């Protein structure tokens, strides 16, 4: 373990990657209100319960980072237009902004998107949902507290009985 500790100490500064504090987009891809809207969408997809939801884990920031840095311009376009659509639909279906809607209204609206006949709306929803799940499941909070990720398992056992408890309850 001494070796591992040595590695930690000697890591250069740039090796420190994503944390909630360090996610800074290079330019303003979304407006402040769109950013808030995205936060509300991810929170609707994975809400706070007895554990934090996607918004508190900054999943909306992660999504923007991925869309801006990794996606091609047409997907970015779908993403931005999708956000506009969500607000328009909120106005039409429940007469308020998405943020002002209650959980049922928000959920209904997103479900509607997922079943939309408009391919762009469907694509937007599946993109945001997929990234929300990815951002949430790969967040430090979930990986350390709920799914108990082990960087150093130290073993491989080929045949163990299937655990009876879910991974989030094993420890």
């Amino acid at each position: 373990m001494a070796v591992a500790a040595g590695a930690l100490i000697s890591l250069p500064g740039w090796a420190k990657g994503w944390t909630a504090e360090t996610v800074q987009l290079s330019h303003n891809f979304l407006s402040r209100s769109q950013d808030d809207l995205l936060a509300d969408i991810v929170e609707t997809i994975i809400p706070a319960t007895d554990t934090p939801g996607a918004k508190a884990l900054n999943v909306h920031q992660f999504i923007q980072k991925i869309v801006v840095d990794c996606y091609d311009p047409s997907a970015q376009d779908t993403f931005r237009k999708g956000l506009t659509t969500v607000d328009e639909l909120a106005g039409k279906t429940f007469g308020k902004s998405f943020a002002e809607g209650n959980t049922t209204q928000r959920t209904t609206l997103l479900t509607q998107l997922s079943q939309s006949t408009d391919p762009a709306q469907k694509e937007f929803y599946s993109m945001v949902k997929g990234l929300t799940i990815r951002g949430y499941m790969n967040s430090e909070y979930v990986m350390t507290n709920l799914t108990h990720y082990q960087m150093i398992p130290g073993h491989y056992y080929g045949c163990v009985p299937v655990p009876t408890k879910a991974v989030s309850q094993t420890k």
Partner: protein
Amino acid sequence: MANLNIDAQAQNTYDAIVIGSGISGGWAAKELTGKGLRTLVLERGRDVRHVTDYPTTMMQPWEFEHRGQLTREVKDANPIVSKCYAFYEGTQQFFVKDAEHPYIQEKPFDWIRGYQVGGKSLLWARQTQRWSDFDFQGPARDGYSVDWPIRYADLAPWYSYVERFAGITGNKDGIDTLPDGEFLPPHEWNCVEKHFQKAVAGKYKDRHVIMGRAAHITKPQPIHLQQGRAQCQHRTICERGCPFGGYFSSNASTIPWAAKTGKMTLRPNSVVHSIIYDEKKGRATGVRIVDANTKQMQEFYARIIFLNAAALNSNLVLLNSTSNRFPNGLGNDSGVLGKYVAFHNYRAGISAQFDGNLDSTTDGRRPNGPYIPRFRNVYKQETDFLRGYAAGFSAGRISRSNQDAIGADLKQNLLNPELGGWHVGSHMMGETIPKETNYVALDSSLKDPFGIPQLKIAIAYDDNDDKMVKDYQEQMTEMFTAAGFTNIRVRDDHRNPGLDIHEMGGARMGKDPKTSMLNKWNQLHAVKNVFVTDGACMTSTSTQNPSLTYMALTARAADYAVKAMKKGEV
């Protein structure tokens, strides 16, 4: 001034120069310094020190800005290297970017490279099988390529020698096509892999499923602890650099070992331009480099030179080492330099499901997997293609959760995944036949950023490879069916040559100087103090991975070189 020049020359003079610090260069450095030679190791890339220069090795998944994904900018700028399975956010620092070293694809070829101290030994998949006489006899048997000047018996003690130092995990399986080695305890099987092993053994006498042999320390021996290396921790993020030295790399093993002798001078950022040939002396006298930082040319001198720049770059260096005596490249009297390049065919794969053993699963991670040694055309020619293929195999279960829901239900599902059934899969590793038409050459006008001619690469599959792909798919389907696997799907991804990262040949070994570049000691037939012991020297490619053979050939050649030097023969 004359005196100053002599001083400068003396300062730049060593007993030996090793070009390259990857798997074979590291071994050359270790062996030559270990035998007391003052050795200069030239590496074109930057220095990468064990542990301290593995910037991502201790990073948790959530610490990666893009969770491992490559950015669009990186992908757009690197269409070639982006195809490599090991190139991702955590490993980008160890791969050559497309713009850094341009080359010409006369035919599509994805050239994957690692320019740094340690080279690709930081990135390799660590499979280490010995070659057998079936491999060394292949060319003599079917007449393609030329006969190897060595046989398994020549290499066996050297395999043992390098295996003990490197640390190889495996099982003694007693298989003709795959000689046993000096193994550390093997990795564990899972129950579906065991099931497949039994099913295959039950149906075929000559087909075996064994645990892979890999360069991982499953149980450290004193020699590994002396290197400062520790037991493999099963992180399976090897390609970020292993701080434990759990797998073999030049960085963790041979280079620091060579440094400890006090005899090694390591010079990173030294792009080799050519080997200097002295016509009066009839020997190579040194190496000409371009300093990567200053772009200045500089010369270093030595009694013997080991060329270990990686297969294609060793060809490039020899081709660019021209003189009146060798206008077509150093030692190239035969004209075969750069030709008869071959590789491994990784195009085909197969996947399926297994509905049994649902009460068991695996725990932990394993940086290795079962292996199916060659079983085709071994004792006789039984198909319409030459040579054969080996295959990887593995089984595992994946957790799944219903993601259709939204809200608290979705969250509940994500955190309470269900274990899916067993998935099994395999990929082929086929031997390709060295052909004159598969070659590399220097471009007459285009230069790389260091003013060195660009390499033209013309390497392609042929009918033999297509037939082999088909046979692998058919035979594996039959074996999978025998094991009761369902939903069997075969694939052929038609990847470009190169992506296998197993390019070999161009400066092949052989008995006859008229048809080969190197003799049985990896010595240039025509320039006795130059040794080539990396992939460039390979006469044929076998169905096994080549790295262990590079190590054994290097240790053997270094032993010979030092003895010959002491006798005044080189």
